[in-house]
């Protein structure tokens, strides 16, 4: 069945394009640091604001740092952050959502009211508020982004768990006397996880944007560390003379969001047809 989902996925052109872009970015993230001779943070005043050439494929910035090396090292942070945020959100929401949905009763009511409160705040505003409390920085921004969508994920995981709990195969297992623990790990959790994974994939592009955007505002990765959003804000004054400083990180963000959207949509469609 897994293979069939994969087959359906690969049958779509959009998914193929997405996978190719994602593969390209992955190679950039993992291989470029090994091949490139430039340190992403190494300043070289003699070579500042050089246009793209064979030596510096994407040119250099105002401190003479190689832009390609910084894009590659930024990919590690930008994309890694998005994956980290989503894994964290997914993990917490699965545990909370399934637990709350299965326990029901007072626990369910209380947790869901708290969730409602968090849902009353737009997610970006919630992220900003958390950064306001914790202070700026890479880790704090990660926490803020997990917080900003956790409530939504918990509510979703809970409703998936409730739906799975009403399924006929679960009713049969229950009547046969199978324990709840077995049912949850055998029937409910795998189902909820599969559905939540699709949601998270669809969300990946949004998280990349949010992370890059908030870093652009100076709330995330701090200089001199490279991150796509931070690179944009650092070099803003030099765009007119050195447009590659704008186009390189912009292209990287655009491509990764595009790849994430394409794969997410294809995954949803492939799975939707199967259900």
């Amino acid at each position, binding site marked *: 069945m897994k293979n069939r989902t994969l087959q359906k996925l690969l049958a779509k052109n*959009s998914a193929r394009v997405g996978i190719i872009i994602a593969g390209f970015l992955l190679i950039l993230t993992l291989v470029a640091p090994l091949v490139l001779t430039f340190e992403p943070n190494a300043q070289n005043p003699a070579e500042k604001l050089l246009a793209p050439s064979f030596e510096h494929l994407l040119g250099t910035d105002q401190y003479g740092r190689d832009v390609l090396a910084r894009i590659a090292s930024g990919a590690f942070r930008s994309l890694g952050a998005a994956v980290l945020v989503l894994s964290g959100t997914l993990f917490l929401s699965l545990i909370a959502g399934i637990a709350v*949905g*299965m*326990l*029901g009763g007072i626990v369910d009511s209380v947790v869901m*009211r*708290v969730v*409602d*409160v*968090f*849902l*009353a*705040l*737009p*997610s*970006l*505003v*919630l992220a*900003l*508020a958390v*950064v*306001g*409390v914790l*202070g*700026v920085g890479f880790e704090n921004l990660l926490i803020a982004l997990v917080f900003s969508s956790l409530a939504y994920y918990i509510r979703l995981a809970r409703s998936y768990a*409730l739906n799975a*709990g*009403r399924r006929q195969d*679960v*009713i049969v297992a*229950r009547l046969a006397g199978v324990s709840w623990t077995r049912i949850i790990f055998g029937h409910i959790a795998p189902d909820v996880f599969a559905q939540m994974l699709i949601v998270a994939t669809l969300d990946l*592009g949004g998280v990349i*944007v949010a992370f*890059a*955007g*908030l870093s*652009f*505002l*100076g*709330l995330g990765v701090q200089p001199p560390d490279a991150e796509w959003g931070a690179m*944009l804000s650092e070099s*803003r004054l030099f*765009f*007119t003379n050195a*447009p590659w400083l*704008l186009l390189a990180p*912009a292209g990287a*963000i*655009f*491509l990764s*969001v*595009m790849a994430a*959207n*394409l794969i997410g949509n294809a995954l949803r469609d492939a799975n939707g047809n199967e259900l």
Partner: protein
Amino acid sequence: MTPDRLAIKSSRQRFFRRDSFPARIFARLAQAILAMLGASVLVWALLPLAGGDTATRILQARGVENPSEIEIEAVRLELNLDAPLVNQYFIWLGRAVRGDLSISFQSGRPVAEEIARRFPATALLAVVALGFSIVLSVSAAVLSAAFYDKLPDKIIRFLTQAGAAMPSFLLGLLVLQFVVIGFGWGKVVSGSSVADVWLPALCLAVGRASDWTQILRANLLEALEARYTLVARARGATRWRVLLLYALPNALIPFLTVVGIGTGALFGGAVIIEMVFSWNGIGSYAVGAIGARDLPVVQGFVVVATLIYVVSSLLVDTLAALIDPRLREAKSRL
């Protein structure tokens, strides 16, 4: 939860179903107020959670560089900072409801006043962006559904894919670089006025309009598959009549919810585009405050953004009920 407990739960939910239209609206209103109250606890808690001595920071904001013990004590007394946290919350809430959002640590001026001064600029930007988003997405989605799988649909699908992958701040930077500086249209540092609103609003609208087009297009295609559209076609209705008079109103109901949530998020989401275009709104004000850990300003920003978010989703729910008779009345068949 055991299946039988599920059964009881569902029958209980049915028991509490509110049926008449005013009762539903009232219930929805009560829900919104409760959510706001809950959110207010959250917002208030930002300050104690952040740590640091509030009284000292307030005195510093008032221009007292090295406040003495006595001065600090006086402020603590004035703001009831020694009271139990629960009391502090209610004092804070009482003031917030009356429009007193404390003073900014940075400027020493009342937060409410500062926000009120910048609010019109943000509102202008958000409303124009909302208008763009709605007009763009509805027309593109209708066109796309009308020419399903033909050239216009393919073009629109390609554009929405690209638009959805283009974050507004990125588009803003590109527009600023290549349209404003390149062609000399618009201003680099905007005057936050009606004359300058078009470019930032468009940048803010493109991503949203792309998402919304994709959603509305899917809704439209689904409605065109419904049996009532088949029946209308069998009576002799033209494709356009079916699309505009049958599919569109039905597709708009779920779309409205999306627009409601998006609208609320626009006020908070304008933050980054405000920074890009140097737009003097509450978003750029809040970002400055976050960097300086000026928490009363952050609180004020969150309060305003949340209020708008809750109100807009409330409005949208009411609007949906006005369009859809099924959401309006008790379900009782003759």
